């Protein structure tokens, strides 16, 4: 597929041109190897992995206490999507990387079981064998019948593109948090209801038992109790205890802070924006939310049941389905949100990125962008919302959340081996400040992933040849991102990512082999979900898991390190401001209290911060290991677990560095795409190139077609310029024709030239039948009009000619145009009939860029104070007018009628700007008393 142009560049010397082309092909050694899979119909842009699924999908899995990890459902729920992809297997994988698994049950020192409102954890993991990379969002739902009252679930966004997952992490995380929040809200409601029922049962049981005991007491009046009576009394006591426990649980679930509910309110509110069908549900749910407390209190009448002393065996009972766990309403709402996510992240990464950049840029021109841009996308508003929320809530966040008071445990563990398999695990626990700036920095941080990510990829690919079998890579934990952005200096460091850093990262990087798991990144939801969500997390778990502070973390690390290294490690940690996490794409981090050192030291010390742990052969063990780590860092058993059997030398990261640094650097740098290719080969991909399903597919296609037809119009009609000028200057263009499809097509094509009034649809009427009314001209700026053959048609024409001062009339059947003269220079540039542009989408972009220019002119004109208001009192209107004219002509370089275009746009801008204030202003109809001319082909 590397084809003609490249080769031609090599061969086409001037001499060759002159000679007849009788030379044989290039010598073998100069020929560019063809893309190896061209024969298979693949192209160089097809995905490199051997994913067995055709496109991205969302998987919901559960760690069932009965059968272990199992997939529940996929979105889209279509077997074609995931194809032969082993969902069961992958569920196992994704469920095994939950570092935040909640601890529920009887915590030491507490009499009652304690509910922990656990944060979701967010992990990115990759499975190179399956060619699948996933963003995994773990969440815990409550179930009274489940062990420890919890049911771990996870939602995973599975893609074959690692970069997509990594770079869209923020967005994925934010979106999934919404879905999760929705589920959890429903679950809390359901759980509270369940608890109430249970309490009623217990109460009933108690009364029954009580009366029975009384009867027995009365029956044996002998002064001693029968064993039966004692048993009953015990039973009664246990019921009493159970009641207290359940009451406590109910209290806990009810005590879930109200602010939290607000947060989820917001979540559902946003779903309203995105999901039409969820509209109903969410509104009702909003309603429910507000009346939530009531709902908890007054449940419908329920007849209590007697509870047997012996509960049924755990495996006998059927566990509740996800839908039962949450309210059906919430469940459907969540599904809607998930399918929205699926839709949102469809398509190639570069498409997503471009559109994101596009949106970001457009947002900067929020005053003018309504004119020609047709993005009225919901997610945009959502982003705005998200931006606004934290800023609000950060003020009323409890101060206790600040890092000073809430000590930050910092555990940086990289488990790895350079031999055959590597475990690189990075876990960082960090209480994030939650300031917006942080997020900003994070974003830059993430954007700097790109090269690193690439290198990771290369690295992985190279080793892919050695590696085989299954591997899951956990590449990093998200919490670290927040740490990264601790200080400004850190942020600045991020951008010019020094080669050393990259190298060291790459070097100490995991190799892939059987049974290795790499966590790319995990993110306790803290870091990314809007503050509203996290601020109000009751900190049962927070307090526990964050109980250990910095000191503790270091201490812990010291423990992990073998004795002989311990001191050095500690030392290095103490004077290491920034630790480079070798395995993690997120790069490096600093504790923010110290100034980062220069790059070389940086590299080294960074490596020191990493504790390497050799491979673990059994995944079972891995899981345990991971779990333990995530749950309780200080748990001694986990330390033991992770330490056991590791040769001391392997724990020394500097060793790692030294051994591989030099040798690999060059390779890392000079490895090119061919390595990608080869890795593809090794994975024996039969993968179909990921079908590009951009979110706005239809609109994209629409644009393309519109551009194409506009091009055709421009080429076909010599009077295209005045017609386009009419549109740009706000004069309604009526396209008159008999054939609806032709008229519609042209209307669609020309609609790209119609400036918008506001954020609504463009003022375009594709097909109207006469008569036209003055209202139509006020409302529509481009009208496709049906030509009626009957006598009434004459009336139509008459009416049109009557309103001729407001309209330009393009008669498609007679190929005439009646409209004012145009002598400007703007439209010829915009619509050059000799343009070299061939493709519709290209032309569309050309038009858009021209319009951006035009908009900026209009913006300047509108917002220049001295152009519209007298600089002093005595200034006359004439002076003002002449100033305007000279500005338009000299500063903006507008000629003749172009002035009117900018003036019209300026009026629209003014109207729009003032519209933002309350009070509706109608669109007005403007006309110029200028003569019209009849153009013919």
């Amino acid at each position: 597929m590397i084809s003609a142009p490249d080769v031609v560049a090599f061969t086409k010397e001037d001499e060759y041109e002159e000679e007849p082309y009788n030379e044989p092909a290039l010598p073998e050694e100069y020929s560019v190897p063809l893309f190896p899979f061209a024969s298979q119909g693949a192209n160089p842009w097809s995905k490199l992995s051997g994913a067995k699924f055709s496109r991205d999908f969302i998987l919901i899995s559960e760690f069932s206490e009965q059968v272990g990890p199992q997939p529940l459902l996929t979105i889209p729920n279509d077997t074609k999507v995931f194809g032969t992809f082993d969902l069961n297997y992958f569920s196992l994988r994704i469920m095994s990387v939950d570092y935040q698994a909640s601890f529920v049950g009887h915590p030491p020192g507490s009499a009652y079981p304690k509910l922990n409102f656990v944060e979701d954890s967010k992990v990115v993991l990759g499975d190179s064998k399956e060619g699948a990379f996933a963003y995994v969002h773990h969440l815990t739902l409550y179930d009274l019948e489940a062990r420890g009252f919890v049911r771990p679930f996870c939602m995973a966004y599975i893609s074959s593109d690692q970069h997509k997952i990594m770079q869209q992490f923020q967005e994925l995380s934010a979106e999934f948090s919404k879905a999760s929040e929705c589920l959890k809200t429903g679950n809390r409601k359901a759980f509270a209801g369940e608890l109430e029922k249970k309490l009623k049962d217990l109460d009933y049981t108690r009364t029954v038992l009580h009366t029975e005991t009384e009867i027995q007491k009365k029956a044996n009046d002998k002064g001693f109790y029968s064993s039966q009576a004692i048993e009953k009394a015990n039973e009664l006591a246990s019921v009493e205890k159970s009641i207290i426990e359940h009451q406590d649980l109910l209290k806990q679930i009810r005590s879930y802070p109200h602010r939290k509910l607000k947060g989820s309110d917001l979540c559902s509110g946003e779903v309203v924006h995105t999901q039409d069908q969820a509209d109903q549900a969410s509104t009702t749910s909003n309603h429910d939310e507000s009346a939530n407390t009531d709902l908890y209190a007054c449940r419908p009448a329920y007849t209590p049941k007697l509870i047997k002393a012996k509960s049924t065996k755990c495996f006998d009972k059927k566990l509740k389905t996800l839908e039962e766990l949450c309210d059906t309403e919430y469940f459907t709402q969540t599904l809607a949100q998930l399918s929205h996510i699926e839709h949102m992240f469809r398509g190639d990464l570069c498409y997503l990125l471009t559109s994101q950049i596009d949106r970001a840029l457009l947002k900067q021109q929020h005053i003018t962008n309504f004119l020609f841009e047709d993005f009225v996308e919901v997610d945009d508003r959502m982003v705005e919302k998200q931006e606004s929320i934290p800023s609000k809530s950060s003020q009323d966040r409890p101060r206790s959340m600040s890092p000073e008071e809430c000590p930050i445990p910092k555990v940086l563990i990289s488990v790895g081996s350079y031999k055959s398999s590597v475990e690189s695990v990075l876990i960082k626990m960090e209480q994030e400040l939650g300031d917006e700036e942080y997020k900003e920095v994070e974003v830059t941080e993430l954007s700097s992933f790109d090269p690193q990510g690439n290198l990771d990829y290369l690295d992985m690919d190279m080793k892919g040849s050695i590696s085989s079998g299954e591997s899951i890579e956990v590449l990093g934990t998200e919490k670290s991102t927040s740490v990264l952005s601790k200080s400004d200096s850190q942020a600045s460091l991020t951008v010019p990512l020094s080669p050393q850093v990259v190298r060291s990262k790459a070097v100490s990087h995991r190799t892939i082999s059987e049974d290795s798991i790499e966590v790319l990144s995990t993110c306790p939801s803290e870091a990314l979900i809007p503050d509203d969500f996290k601020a109000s997390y009751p900190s049962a778990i927070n307090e526990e898991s964050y109980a250990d502070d910095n000191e503790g973390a270091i201490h812990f690390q010291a423990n992990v390190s073998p004795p002989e290294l311990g001191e050095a490690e500690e030392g290095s940690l103490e004077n290491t401001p920034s630790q480079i996490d070798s395995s993690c794409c997120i790069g490096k981090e600093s504790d923010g209290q110290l100034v980062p050192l220069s790059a070389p030291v940086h590299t080294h010390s960074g490596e020191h911060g990493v504790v390497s742990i050799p491979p673990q052969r059994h995944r079972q063990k891995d899981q345990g290991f991971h779990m333990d780590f995530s749950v309780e860092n200080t748990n001694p058993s986990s330390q033991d677990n992770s330490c056991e059997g590791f040769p001391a030398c392997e724990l020394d990261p500097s060793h790692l560095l030294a051994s591989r640094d030099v040798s690999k650097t060059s390779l890392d740098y000079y490895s090119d795409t061919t390595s990608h290719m080869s890795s593809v080969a090794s994975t024996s991909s039969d993968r179909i190139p990921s079908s590009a399903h951009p979110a706005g597919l239809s609109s994209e296609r629409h644009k393309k077609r519109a551009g194409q037809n506009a091009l055709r119009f421009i080429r076909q009609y010599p009077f295209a310029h005045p017609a386009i000028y009419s549109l740009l200057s706000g004069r309604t263009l009526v396209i008159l024709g008999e054939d609806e499809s032709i008229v519609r097509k042209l209307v669609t094509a020309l609609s790209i030239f119609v400036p918008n009034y506001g954020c609504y649809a463009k003022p375009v009427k594709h097909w109207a039948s006469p008569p036209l009314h003055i209202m139509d001209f006020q409302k529509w700026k481009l009208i496709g009009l049906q030509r009626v053959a009957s006598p009434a048609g004459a009336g139509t024409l008459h009416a049109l000619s009557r309103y001729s001062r407001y309209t330009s009339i393009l008669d498609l059947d007679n190929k005439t145009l009646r409209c004012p003269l145009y002598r400007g220079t703007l439209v010829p540039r915009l619509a050059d009939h000799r343009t070299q542009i061939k493709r519709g989408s290209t032309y569309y972009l050309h038009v858009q860029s021209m319009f951006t220019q035009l908009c900026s002119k209009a913006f300047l004109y509108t917002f220049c104070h001295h152009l519209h208001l007298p600089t002093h009192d005595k200034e006359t209107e004439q002076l003002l007018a002449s100033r305007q004219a000279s500005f338009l002509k000299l500063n903006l370089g507008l000629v003749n009628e172009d002035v009117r275009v900018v003036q019209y746009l300026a009026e629209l801008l003014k109207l729009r700007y003032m519209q933002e204030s309350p009070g509706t202003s109608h669109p007005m109809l403007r006309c110029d008393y200028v003569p019209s001319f009849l153009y013919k082909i």
Partner: protein
Amino acid sequence: MLRWLIGGGREPQGLAEKSPLQTIGEEQTQNPYTELLVLKAHHDIVRFLVQLDDYRFASAGDDGIVIVWNAQTGEKLLELCGHTQKITAIITFTSLESCEEKNQLILTASADKTVIVWDSNTGRQVQRISCFQSTVKCLTVLQRLDVWLSGGNDLCVWNRKLDLLCKTSHLSDTGITALVEIPKNCVVAAVGKELIIFRLVAPTEGSLGWDILEVKRLLDHQDNILSLVNVNDLSFVTGSHVGELIVWDVLDWTMQAYERNFWDPSLQLDTQQEIRLCQKSNDISIHHFTCDEENVFAAVGRGLYVYNLQMKRVIACQKTAHDSNVLHIDKLPNRQLISCSEDGSVRIWELREKQQLTAEPVPTGFFNMWGFGRVNKQASQPVKKQQENATSCSLELIGDLIGHSSSVEMFLYFEDHGLVTCSADHLIILWKNGQRESGLRSLKLFQKLEENGDLYLAV
């Protein structure tokens, strides 16, 4: 719109017929109205517009609804619903200075034989009077006496509290078509061909009650009186269906001037079919008057005439100003005249003086609207005679406003906000000076910027 559709068929003929109509091309440099706003709220013909204050006006029509609008923004402020049939008269009743509540009342009369009094600020229905025997066709307020009069088949006098003070006996079945206040507590009512002068007797020491007395009947008009307007302190003017314009003295009710030039008898003799068609009697009926200090402007059939009170003659005319009957005319302060017509257009005219030193024939531009050959000469003869001794004027078309698809019933001129027209196509259109509006918008824009603190002025 419908009218245009139906009328569309015979358009070619119509065009030929209309050839004398003065037209103006697309280029209308003096026409300031380059922006328009269509207001749609009525469901039937909108017949009345009344100004409430500097920025508000009310509209009423055959759908029985009264709507209060903001003339600046076109915003619908209030909708007054209460009448079940079409509204026949509307008037505002501003409270006197002495009154404590400053609210302005809107009085509406309807074909459902009721009069409703509205509060123009709140839209509240203050009171509803339904004791009428007949439809009230006109309303007038005597500000000085703080009473208002309703004219139908009889004439009733009401005070502010809506008590019936007195009433006349049944006058005629056609009823009072127009009512005007003249000095000495008198009112003139146009009833059919007659003008009746009534005198109001306010309560005095002797008599406690109000009374209304018929003082005089003037029988000089030969046909139904269509329009009745106060000119100044000295005179009022009436116009009839057959084109009689009579100027009356306000005090002794005598005829000061009589003008029938609009109706040229010679035309009736003309055998040309076309001419006879367009000179039907209603083509010379006087629909509306407007006055300034020296001139009476009359809408006569399809034409416009300027009658000078001092010279007692027509000083300028535009005999075919519109395609169809002119329904309403108004004089703007800047010597401009606006007329609206059944043909759905609004035209802006300027009264231009020109010194006629010699008795040379009037420029053709002046008369060529009149038509062809002989007719032209005959028609111009009286005018020529009048022009001999003094200044003459001409009405020049400086612009037309096209927007309505059916007859424009009335319009209202706001000094600051432009022109409001209402029409049988159920629409109200706000015509604005685009340039001025643009400037105003800029002003607002920068005000808003300043409010938001976004305005940085270069030092």
